[in-house]
């Protein structure tokens, strides 16, 4: 089977199973607070790791400075609670401009 399709189907089936937990168990079970917290913080850890490796690396090498610089611009905009579209445009725009100047 196509690898992309397999990925989408496995992710879809697993996600739906998580979502069914509530409606199926319906009030019979409650997750311990400690487990809930681990899941919440675990999600954050994954996102931070993804964005850091995505910002600095390409394959197994350094991605060059333009990309992390653009991500930083987007991060500052997000920190100042700029709208999502501004964050995306700011990050992409800064990276594109830096590349125009010849930075990798």
């Amino acid at each position, binding site marked *: 089977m196509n690898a992309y399709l397999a990925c989408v189907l496995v992710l879809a089936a697993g996600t739906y199973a998580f979502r069914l937990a509530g409606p199926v168990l319906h009030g019979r079970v409650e997750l311990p607070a400690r487990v809930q*917290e681990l899941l919440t913080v675990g999600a954050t850890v994954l996102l931070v790791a993804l964005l850091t490796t995505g910002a600095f690396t390409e394959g197994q090498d350094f991605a060059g400075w333009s990309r992390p610089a653009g991500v930083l611009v987007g991060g500052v905009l997000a920190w100042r609670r700029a709208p999502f579209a501004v964050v995306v445009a700011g990050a992409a725009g800064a990276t594109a401009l830096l590349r125009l100047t010849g930075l990798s």
Partner: protein
Amino acid sequence: MLPGMCSSHRTDDPVERTTGLVRFSDLPPGVLRDIALVLVADAVVGLSFGAISVAGGLPLWVPVAMSLLVYAGSAQFSAVAVLTAGGGPAAAAATGLLLNSRTAAFSLAVADSLGRSWPARLVGAHLITDETAAFVLAQPDLRSRKAAFWISGAGLFAVWNISVFGGALAGSALGDTGRFGLDAAFPAVLLALVLPAVRDDGNARRAGAVGAVIALAATPVLPAGAPVLLALLGLVAMRRRVPVTPPSPGSPS
């Protein structure tokens, strides 16, 4: 921020038993406007997701099918980030699943609001997201929670899938993505998603920082996808402390 958490309202509301359908008028004033604002925000996220996925080299049907079948913003972004970085489909699915495991906690919290029939439960389950959970948990009684769930859930599903499709079409027209800096947009999107959590939560900050260092250090030596999962070791930096914060309606899933 989110009054009226679920535990005190259960099945003993007589009104809820008599009506099967939800109405806009069941919602407290202002909630419909809040839902509309989140719909607009999610449309922008969806457009970006579609465009960036296709610009990153994935066939058009991947972001579209993923949005219909997986339907979870941050997990979709993460899975696509792993795929376009050259990670295998297994690593991509594992990353997305770990991110979506929190949906199980949300689904337990909002289960009441889906309705009692099995079709409602089975269809409603697919519509559970950070946003719908946040809207539901903010409502004062069961009737308005049910309305909030189905109105925000159906609206978000429609808007998300239409905007992802539109973005994917636009992305395939872009051509060379490096020139437009779109490779920086993906990490920036993830950063915007994660900021509210790290802003308010010291544990998330500590664990996230340790995990990021681990992932960066592991990237040159491990196959793509693995460093991000290894970052979960950062969870040991957590300190014990009191309850979790619920999601806020403003943050896309």
